[in-house]
């Protein structure tokens, strides 16, 4: 197409496709969460029998861990951008540990709810909406952890380099989203709904 008049625009820049794609995915995921949050809020106090949200304990430590993992991811992003691969690996590992702690905490909470308080997904409407919403978020944490672990494995194998900073940042967007959603879930389930 050299016959086209040459358009001398040296500043022709487009957004990175990974970033656009991830933002689009986040918008779509937000819509899924919105539906589950709306269902939870609509059904607060509508259970006709069985345990109520009063049995929940506020998972303060868990929340602190998950939110801190967003901070460690930022440090990791910063480290890889400046080529400090060792620091990147350490911050990345810290993120994974914090994520695993969160999942362990959720597991302990569910264990207590199921065996001590007798609340399962089929017990009543509260059980249905609680396990679905918190479980949906936990599923996203698990997917995030799998992604984090894959990148960790590549880091340990020495395959992650400075030039991958953009991709790491795109993946980190997803992790930030998972943390941000927890703020909503936490507020709705443990503060407003209790």
């Amino acid at each position: 197409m050299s016959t086209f008049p040459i358009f001398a625009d040296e500043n022709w820049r487009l957004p990175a496709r990974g970033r656009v794609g991830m933002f689009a995915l986040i918008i779509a995921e937000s819509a899924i969460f919105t539906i589950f949050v709306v269902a939870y809020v609509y059904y607060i106090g509508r259970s006709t029998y069985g345990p109520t949200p009063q049995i929940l304990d506020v998972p303060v430590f868990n929340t602190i861990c998950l939110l801190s993992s967003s901070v460690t991811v930022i440090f990791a992003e910063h480290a890889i951008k400046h080529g400090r691969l060792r620091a990147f690996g350490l911050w990345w590992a810290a993120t994974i540990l914090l994520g695993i702690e969160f999942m362990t905490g959720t597991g302990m909470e569910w264990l207590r709810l199921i065996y001590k308080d007798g609340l399962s997904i089929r017990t009543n409407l509260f059980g249905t909406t609680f396990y679905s919403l918190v479980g949906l978020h936990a599923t996203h944490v698990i997917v995030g952890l799998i992604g984090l672990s894959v990148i960790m494995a590549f880091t340990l194998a020495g395959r992650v380099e400075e030039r991958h900073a953009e991709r790491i940042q795109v993946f980190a967007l997803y992790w930030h989203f998972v943390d941000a959603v927890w703020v909503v879930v936490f507020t709705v389930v443990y503060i407003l709904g209790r």
Partner: protein
Amino acid sequence: MADQTYPIPGILDTTPSRAARLVEWVHSWVVTVDHKRLGILYIVYALFFLLVAGAEAMAMRIQLAVPNNHFLSPELFNEFFTMHGTTMVFLVGMTIIFGIGNYLVPLMIGARDMAFPRLNAFSFWMSAFGGLFLYFSFVGGFGLYGMGSAPDVTWWAYAPLTAKAFTPGHNTDYWALSLIVMGFGTLGAAINILATAFSMRCRGMTLFRMPLFVWLMVVTSGLTLITITPLTAAQVMLIIDRYLGAHFFDAQAGGAPIVWMHFFWIFGHPEVYVLILPAFGIASEVIPVFSRKAIFGYPAMVAASVGIAFVSTTVWAHHMFTVGMTSVGNSFFVLSTMMVGIPTAIKIFNWTATMWGGKIRFATPMLFCTAFLFQFLCAGLTGIMLASAPWNWQLHNSYFVIAHFHYTLTGSFIFCIFAAFYYWYPKVTGRMLSEKLGKRHFWLFFIGFHLTFDTMHFVGILGMPRSIYTYEADRGWNTLNFWISVGGLIQGIAVLIFAWNLIRSYLHGEESGNDPWDAWTLEWSTPSPPPAYNFAEDPVVRSRRPLWDLKHPHDPDWKYER
């Protein structure tokens, strides 16, 4: 005779056998990540299901042609209208728009492929297997015992009918699971289109120089992100209810079936805009080329498209006026629904203004687009009638509603899709579709469409409810129903002519060359069919009509466009 080859004794014959070549050919289509090939796969897949869903519609029309008919059993009738709706919306509509989008978006913005080619292939195969899974329901489950497990709960699948107690067996599960799978495919396609349009444009292709079809695909994909996902979420809830014994839609445990209605229509209403917006894009490409004028009011068209997408997310409960919402709720949804009329009217005005004073060529694509303009206007007018709550209370779930939305989905969406076929078929195959068969297809389809769906308005006003298996002879619906079925038959014949035209022109059609319509967008600068890499050199554009600039170097658009 000098160049004749003689068989040498003992040499190995390395020419692959016919079977091996066939396997190779199939394999190349299965593993392809080329956006053009995937686009063709989407389109062929959609066309196949268009014929299937059309056959289902024909069977229903034969059943309803005369009162007290027993052509279909009541169970099969329920399965057919559920599958007709589900197939047309998800397997035909969604796949064909993403197929056409897949093929054209990279070509129109001067890119070599989509942003994520492998995600693209993944999305197609997810959609494809979701669709096959849906149709497997006819033989799967208890289907082999002769009952069939095809979904029979209507395509909106209201709770509590879908509860385990009321729909035992796996009909509902097939419906929900296959649509969840297809939903992920659609989501991948939408993300891909967005990333392509934002990140892969060629030099000089600013957002406001993108062809309107690309703009409409962007708006549609954005709308898909927030439209398909609520359906997926609601279907996950339904599956949790059915398999884990949860109570989302279980009224006895305090759950509310009305929540399903809200969730479904939060998806369901924007969904029709997801389908119709690419059709607008097609009309916005075809009408200017066949009127020999640049599109009138390009920025207004873009603004109106985005406006439609925004408004469409606030109108869902107009499907629920008869449920008994508060008067405030009713008023809100009446007003928001009527607001859709403003941006759509801007669009109709701009298309008409594009044709006004133009040198119109009524080739087949233009015929379909002209019919679309009038039919879409009528669909909009009955839409405004139905948006008024008191009118809706009278006609909800009647054939008037069926007539209204078939005016939008057949009279507008399918007409534009046919226009797209006649317009872009030469680009895809290198051969023109036969104009003679095309004109016959158009006129038969046009007559059949009006016979069927104009008449349906009247039978609806006379009180015939939708989704009924048969009716008594003394209701005064007999003659009208008979003519509706005749119209359906005429449309069926027209679609068969179209299918024949596709096959015949592929084999014997006239060679088209690169640019048979003297058009202005980038895809016509490539050979027909385009090579795998699309553009040998990355194009550079300076206006909305790069090929006009190329053909008229003394009077280019970029001198006048700001």
